[in-house]
């Protein structure tokens, strides 16, 4: 890395920050960040196929059991059913948290990688913070994943298990590393004459970079517009329905009306599905947009022919559009739309993997890209 506080160039207020040496902080954060996003997406796909739907069915079945227990006037069965709902929701919640934290830590790693030239520390210290960050970013999701399975086994505490303790430790490592980088950023701006950093990444104007940046902005904007539409048209209606359907279920159970209980439970299931697909489409559109924008900055480090970089950028954008659109259509077209949404997710994963391999092959300096191989 070319930047350190003690260089002569900084004293003259001019910095060149194009280095990308093996095991430099920037390379660690870029490869680690994309790796975390890839693992998070793969985990999300596996979780969606093998856990999410089965778990939702179990939650629905337990809620139906609670309603029928109320119908039969069986208090202990009502309580047992709600305990089951709590356990299924904990399993689901920790798996969703694992998926979300892996991806979000990946995003944070990419942002920190872009900021590296402005972090006014020696490369050795920055590398240490990068390892600390990546260690914590791996430890937290693993700990969260294990919370439901480990429980309180061998725990020295009454309410918090070992998995939670290690997850919290992971979070602490991430916070410490991020604070370290922020301190470096503050150092840079507080220095008597802040160095003018020339970073080859931010001045890149390649076609693949522009495609990813423009496509990403459009995806983010589309996600926001969809979110605004959801808030205006569906949010309050969904909230009112959620409450009124459950009230109707309980009233029907109190009145011994089994048909209405079953009808209400079916309506409740449909409402939850409607809510889930609309929120998922909104969130995925914005997240994929942000991912495309961040990947735009790192295109100079992707050691592939420009034509292949453009192809992979198109694949990533196509997958990023396909997934949220098909998720929205899932309620109307069922498995066909669901399959296409999964295919969209696969396209994003493939494009991300191709870029990750391209970055892994990158030799070191931005200047050397003239001779890049495909």
């Amino acid at each position, binding site marked *: 890395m070319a930047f350190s506080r003690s260089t002569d160039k900084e004293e003259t207020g001019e910095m060149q920050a194009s280095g990308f040496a093996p095991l430099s902080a920037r390379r660690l954060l870029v490869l680690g960040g994309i790796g975390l996003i890839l693992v998070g997406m793969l985990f999300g796909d596996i979780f969606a196929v093998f856990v999410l739907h089965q778990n939702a069915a179990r939650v629905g079945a337990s809620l139906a059991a*609670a*309603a029928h*227990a*109320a*119908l*039969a*006037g*069986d*208090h202990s069965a*009502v*309580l047992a059913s*709600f305990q089951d709902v*709590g356990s299924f929701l904990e399993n689901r919640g920790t798996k969703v948290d694992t998926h979300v934290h892996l991806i979000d830590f990946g*995003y*944070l790693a990419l*942002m920190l990688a*872009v900021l590296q030239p402005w972090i006014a520390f020696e490369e050795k210290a920055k590398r240490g913070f990068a390892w600390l960050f990546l260690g914590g970013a791996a430890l937290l999701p693993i700990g969260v994943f294990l919370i439901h399975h480990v429980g309180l086994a061998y725990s020295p505490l009454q309410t918090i298990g070992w998995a939670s303790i290690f997850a919290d430790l992971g979070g602490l490592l991430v916070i410490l590393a991020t604070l370290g980088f*922020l301190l470096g*950023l503050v150092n840079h701006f507080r220095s008597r004459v802040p160095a003018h950093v020339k970073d080859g990444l*931010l*001045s890149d*104007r390649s076609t693949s970079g*522009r495609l990813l*940046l*423009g496509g990403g*902005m*459009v995806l*983010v*904007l589309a996600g*926001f*517009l969809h*979110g*605004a539409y959801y*808030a205006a048209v569906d949010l309050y209606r969904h*909230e009112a329905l*959620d*409450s009124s359907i*459950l*009230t109707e279920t*309980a*009233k029907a*159970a*109190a*009145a011994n009306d089994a048909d209405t209980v079953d009808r209400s439970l079916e309506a409740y299931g449909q409402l939850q599905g409607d809510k889930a697909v609309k929120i998922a489409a909104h969130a995925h559109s*914005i997240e994929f947009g*942000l991912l495309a*924008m*961040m990947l*735009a*900055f790192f295109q100079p480090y992707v050691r592939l022919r420009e034509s292949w970089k453009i192809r992979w950028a198109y694949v990533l954008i196509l997958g990023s559009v396909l997934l949220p659109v098909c998720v929205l259509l899932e309620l109307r077209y069922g498995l066909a739309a669901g399959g296409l949404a999964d295919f969209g997710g696969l396209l994003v994963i493939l494009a991300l993997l191709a870029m990750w391999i391209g970055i892994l092959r990158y030799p070191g300096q931005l200047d050397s890209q003239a001779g890049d191989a495909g």
Partner: protein
Amino acid sequence: MSGSRKLLILGGIALALWGMGYGTWYAVFAEHQALDGIGASLAAAFDASASRNPGEAETAFSKYREAKYIYDRQVDVHGHWIGLAMLLIVVGMAFDRVRFAEPHKLVLACALLAGAAIFPFGVLLQTFDHGAIPRGIAILGSGLVIAALLAITLGIAGGEAPAE
């Protein structure tokens, strides 16, 4: 680094820290109590139904409705503050590619930062007051974010800006 770019990046970092601080406070002091309240009121409603007591069930459902309304918004506030902060930082990094004059870019950066701060704040206010004012603040904030993003997208699409 231009003023507009600095405003977006530093504003984004500040908003992220604020959002994380709010999330930490919420997770430690409020979330578990809120989830317990939601679960307990729902179980109480069905238990009252098992006792053939519709009045008690209705009271428990009212508690469930209110607790869930507040919980959903508080989680949304935390998520949106941090999500918007990330967007501010990423847009800030790419801001030299927006083909507008610096004074116009500064206005856009101010609008985006203000919208990113105001929109979740309006949602948070809804947990205290279900009236039109908090909802109006949230709509104003989201409107600012959408309008600024639209202008920035046009600025990026309008042609290639020289590197800063």
